[in-house]
């Protein structure tokens, strides 16, 4: 799929070497969040609200503090006042203020000399609650009579007359949708719902924090972004961010859920109260599920018009999303632009509201907002295709966005690969496999913007001719390898001679987290620029040695060369030679690059899934699964495939079995992996992948982020495959067996 005008034939880019951190990770040596310990360290435990909504009348910690070995208790009273905006939200979530806003909301924390003792002490902290009426469902939260959870939460965007739980409203669009619907041969309108799901990283949140009387502190933490942790923790505690040094551990998965703070500042607050002793806090799985960011739940109205030939004439959506008890956390701002991003449709209208409910503060989850939007829009497109007897790939080819299309949300797409993914899916053998009884096939496309963001990278040339790269984006799935490959390619030295280290907040300028599919794109782009800067300096050193102009030296294959016959005849000077002499030739050689990286290109994907449904139990088995996605350039194809497969697996879980189940009491009923059912190995088939490469002109090696798009298509693709297998359309995720069986029985009448 490579285009003629893009450089190919790389030596290292596109190969599949071992990742540098692989050895540590297969031997148990890699240190994750909970693996850090320090001399004199205390352990912490958190007291959490058992109520979905309650006024905190009194907190009595006297019994806990009377236990020998208990060193400190913190409550909201220990935190500074006067915060506003998102800082206040973060503080409110770290420790509840006047009210506990969801089941699992932290109310107090205690530090003691052992983990068991801290847990015992937490059980002795007596909290008196005045239970308040609650609401957890997104539609119920907007119903007349629903309790208003946080009066005055609405921002300027909310029109008069909306429910008191609506915090935000947005709308945009283009064209005349009514004329579009009038021109269609078939117009359908339905409501689709998705339940909240959790990122489900296997590593629970963990941190060790230390804060002295002088307001200086350190934290070791599993996070996708330690500068964010630093800024947020400092804000919550009212300390200077610069006085806090944060070192990221290896990270056991994040998927967006570790881009923010939940309990991390508590380690610092407890440490300070305990005389500066370091404090370790590790969440249990149920704490992770109850009190860290799941995604939003959504209720979405969709209306689309289509002509008999498959032309989509108009589309309209109204999304309602709740992201917990805190404003600003539901991804309406992403879901709406993603809704029709795969299409070029003459008339579109988008509206959405954010709704507050008694649920935990949502966090980003892989392409936040996009999977829900795709479930609604792609399901509806599939319904229209089936009703009109049209091939779903042909309809997408016909209406799909192309190079130069004006996107549904405004900007014009530069170079994109949606059409290529559709063609590749159509040509794939999976699309031609005949289906048996009770089997169905689903197709859907998906989109993610991708992201650049604040990035700072340093590179140091070693005396032995190696290069050490310092990046600020934690390696969550092989990015050290991909960045190492790009630096090796740029410097012209073996991949094994490049070391990529993820460094702490004191070692680089601000870096945004590993989020938005930006690490390989943005840290990679900055690393390449840093390498280029080092190359420039190395050419200068060679020129000085040769006594020629620096402009007369060029860099290739890991060495400085005279640039043509006029420059003089000198044997190439390798990076090793230059490195070994740099002390005497002007000092250490390094490169550095800081940028708010632009030029990230969107990544589109198309998935094809075949399922079989047991008509007697409603149970769905995924028979085969195909992911086709545009990677721009696949730097390390094995980890690109891994992103595709992992995204698909999470999407399959969301589509089939994962959901937050709240009881009538507003408590989460399934805060364990036993009942929060992520896919297990025996649930899935091999996941076939096709890497389409339409290089991104905004990156020196053509990289597009690949992490997020893959979770988007499975939701509608699976629901559509189930519709194909059974005739029953499930418009409310998950497609759990009871729901599917009920739908099958309803069809039979």
């Amino acid at each position, binding site marked *: 799929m490579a285009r003629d005008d893009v450089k190919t034939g790389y030596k290292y880019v596109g190969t599949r070497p071992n990742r540098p951190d692989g050895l540590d990770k297969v031997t148990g040596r890699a240190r994750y969040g909970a693996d850090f310990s320090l001399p004199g360290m205390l352990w912490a435990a958190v007291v959490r609200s058992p109520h979905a909504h309650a006024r905190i009348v009194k907190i009595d910690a006297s019994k806990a503090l009377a236990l020998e070995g208990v060193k400190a208790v913190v409550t909201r009273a220990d935190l500074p006042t006067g915060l506003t905006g998102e800082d206040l939200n973060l503080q409110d979530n770290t420790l509840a203020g006047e009210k506990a806003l969801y089941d699992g909301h932290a109310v107090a924390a205690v530090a003691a000399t052992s983990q068991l003792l801290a847990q015992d002490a937490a059980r002795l902290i007596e909290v008196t609650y005045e239970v308040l009426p609650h609401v957890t469902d997104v539609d119920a939260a907007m119903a007349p009579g629903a309790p208003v959870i946080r009066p005055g939460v609405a921002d300027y965007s909310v029109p008069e007359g909306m429910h008191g739980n609506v915090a935000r409203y947005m709308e945009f669009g283009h064209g005349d949708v009514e004329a579009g619907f009038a021109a269609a041969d078939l117009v359908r309108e339905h409501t689709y719902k998705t339940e909240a799901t959790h990122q489900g990283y296997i590593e629970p949140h963990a941190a060790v924090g230390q804060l002295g009387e002088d307001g200086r502190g350190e934290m070791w933490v599993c996070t996708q972004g330690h500068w964010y942790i630093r800024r947020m923790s400092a804000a919550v505690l009212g300390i200077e961010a610069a006085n806090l040094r944060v070192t990221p551990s290896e990270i056991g998965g994040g998927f967006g859920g570790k881009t923010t703070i939940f309990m991390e500042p508590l380690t610092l607050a407890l440490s300070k109260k305990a005389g500066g002793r370091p404090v370790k806090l590790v969440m249990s799985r149920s704490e992770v599920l109850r009190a860290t960011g799941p995604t939003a739940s959504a209720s979405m109205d969709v209306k689309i018009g289509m002509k008999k030939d498959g032309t989509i004439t108009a589309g309209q959506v109204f999304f309602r999303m709740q992201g917990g008890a805190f404003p600003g956390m539901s991804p309406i701002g992403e879901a709406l632009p993603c809704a029709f991003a795969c299409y070029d449709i003459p008339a579109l209208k988008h509206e959405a509201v954010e709704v507050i409910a008694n649920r935990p503060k949502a966090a980003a989850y892989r392409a936040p907002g996009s999977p829900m939007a795709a479930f609604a829009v792609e399901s509806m497109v599939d319904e229209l295709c089936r009703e009109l007897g049209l091939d779903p790939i042909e309809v997408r080819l016909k209406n799909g966005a192309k190079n130069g299309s004006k996107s549904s949300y405004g900007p014009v797409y530069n170079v994109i690969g949606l059409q290529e993914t559709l063609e590749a899916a159509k040509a794939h053998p999976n699309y031609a496999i005949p289906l048996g009884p009770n089997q169905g096939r689903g197709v859907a496309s998906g989109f993610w913007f991708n992201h650049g963001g604040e990035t700072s990278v340093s590179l140091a040339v070693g005396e032995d001719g190696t290069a050490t790269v310092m990046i600020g984006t934690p390696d969550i799935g092989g990015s050290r390898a991909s960045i190492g490959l790009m630096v090796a390619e740029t410097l012209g030295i073996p991949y094994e001679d490049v070391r990529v280290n993820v460094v702490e907040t004191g070692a680089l300028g601000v870096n945004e987290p590993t989020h938005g599919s930006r690490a390989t794109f943005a840290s990679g782009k900055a690393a390449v620029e840093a390498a280029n800067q080092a190359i420039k300096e190395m050419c200068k050193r060679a020129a000085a040695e040769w006594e020629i102009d620096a402009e007369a030296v060029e860099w290739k294959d890991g060495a400085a060369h005279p640039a043509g016959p006029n420059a003089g005849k000198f044997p190439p000077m390798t990076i090793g030679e230059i490195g070994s002499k740099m002390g005497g030739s002007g000092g250490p050689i390094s490169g550095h690059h800081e940028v708010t990286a632009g030029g990230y290109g969107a990544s589109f994907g198309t998935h094809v899934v075949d399922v079989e449904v047991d008509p007697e139990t409603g149970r769905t088995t995924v028979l085969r699964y195909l992911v086709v996605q545009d990677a721009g350039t696949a730097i390390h194809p094995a980890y690109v495939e891994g992103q595709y497969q992992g995204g698909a697996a999470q999407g399959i879980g969301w589509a089939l079995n994962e959901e937050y189940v709240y009881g009538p009491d507003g408590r989460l009923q399934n805060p364990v*992996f*036993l*009942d929060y059912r992520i896919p*297990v190995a025996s*649930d899935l088939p091999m996941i076939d992948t096709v890497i389409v490469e339409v290089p991104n002109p905004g990156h020196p090696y053509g990289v597009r982020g690949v992490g997020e798009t893959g979770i988007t298509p499975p939701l509608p693709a699976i629901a559509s495959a189930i519709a194909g297998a059974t005739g029953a359309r499930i418009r409310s995720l998950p497609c759990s067996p*009871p729901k599917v*069986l*009920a739908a099958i029985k309803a069809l039979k009448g």
Partner: protein
Amino acid sequence: MRYHTPTSFADAAAIAAGTTGTLRFLAGGTDVLVQMRAGMVQPDDLIDLKHIPGVDKIERTAEGGWRIGVAVPGIVLGGHAELVRDWPGVVEGMNLVGSTQVQGRATLAGNLCNGSPAADSVPGMVAAGAVATVTGPNGTREIPVENIPAGPGKTNLAKGEVISAITLPPRGKNGGDAYLRFIPRTEMDIAVVGCAVNLRLDGDKVVEARVALGAVAPTVLLSEACAKAIIGTTLDDAALAALAKAAEGEAKPISDKRGTKEFRIDVAGVLARRAAKIAYDRAKGTSK
């Protein structure tokens, strides 16, 4: 918490009888440790039964049945070829409990005493006519397995009583058993519905049958109506339909996070049919 390691069931019963706070017995521990971790139970006394001689043994009884020690984990049951040949349904029920790792620890007796109506090993034991030997301060008694659970998380054992063995009756000729459960994933879930069928044939005709249903009532149900639906039949379509109807009629489930009432009733019928066919084929010797 006091951790006890008695070396006889009499000692275990005596320790248990003398406790005043919260008491738990520890066999495989796969339920007790989870409950402790979740803060649901903070035992004052924990009695580890694994130091009692013989608890890890599977032995033939004089009558030709099987006596299974209370600490025999699922993986050992599954690896016991003769036991699997006699009671494949009982073993497959136990082997469905949790993961491979859980199979390394979890036991029949523990699964039974946890008192869950959804316990995967219990319907198979009930259908097989298994008997629990119970040791207490006043000696030992035998209780049919179906009489052990009293409701979710509760048993009919008296204070100081502990299960000291599970006995399966002799398989006898022309018999077969099977257990099926419904879960949304392929592994790692709690049964939404479970059904075990144990039957004996005379020629093509079912002459004896015991059918047990799990997760459709506060305890595992031994259903006479289901047994009646197939006794005297060749398990033809009419008999299977009658069995399904009987199972649906016996099921008195609730709706919860794992499934709706309607779903459980429907699936009870489906599983009864499917399990009966497997048990029938096993009795005929036409399948494993």
